[in-house]
């Protein structure tokens, strides 16, 4: 059993990302979308918490949302990969369960 978690809120505005990170299981994936992609930026106050979880699960950010917010590779946290809308669909299909952290 694996779950795809989506987070669509800025980690500086709500605790959605923190709560998600605190509740994931091994083998799960977190996909950061919409304002959630701010959680993928480096040098932020959230970076250490996100980095710590990457040993256990994969964290992916949606490229169109990164682009919209001006977050390029130089500002992306090391170890976070990106995907597009087609990849989003594939990930949703690949996991047994989807959970949205609104």
């Amino acid at each position, binding site marked *: 059993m694996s779950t795809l978690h989506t987070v669509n809120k*800025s980690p500086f*505005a709500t605790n959605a990302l923190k709560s998600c990170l605190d509740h994931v299981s091994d083998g799960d994936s977190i996909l950061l979308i919409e304002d959630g992609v701010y959680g993928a930026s480096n040098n*932020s*106050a959230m970076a250490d918490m996100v980095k710590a979880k990457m040993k256990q699960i994969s964290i992916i950010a949606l*490229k169109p*949302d990164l682009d*919209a917010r001006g977050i390029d590779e130089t*500002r992306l946290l090391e170890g976070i990969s990106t995907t597009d809308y087609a990849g989003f669909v594939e990930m949703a299909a690949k996991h047994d369960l989807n959970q949205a952290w609104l």
Partner: protein
Amino acid sequence: MSEVVKKFLYVNRKAPYGTIYALESLEVVLIGAAFDQDVSLAFLDDGVFQLTKGQDTKAIGVKNFSPTYRALGDYEVTKLYVEKQSLEERGLSEDDLQELVWEDEDDDWAEKPSIRIIDRKEMAALMADQDVVLSF
């Protein structure tokens, strides 16, 4: 015409695109600019994300309104206060923000920066010094 000039502060605390607040604020600022008041804009918390450079919204199908901030100077909106601590918490520095300027007609149209980085204490003082505060 009323000669009373009031101090207006627009407080921006939301990231762009995720909600409509940032765009709505910008629209109200542009409309309000017609009334010749003493206008300041404050950017704190996630509001600092509104001013980042390199925004490209083609793939999400939403209007990229970030270039509009560059037009504010032409509407005599020349004071954009950005909170230093909010930038730092988000891993940002002034270099990650757009360069926004205004032309000073009293100084031979010299281009001057619109963005002023201030700390939290100065932001509090700025807020306390207003006649009207509009929050977004």
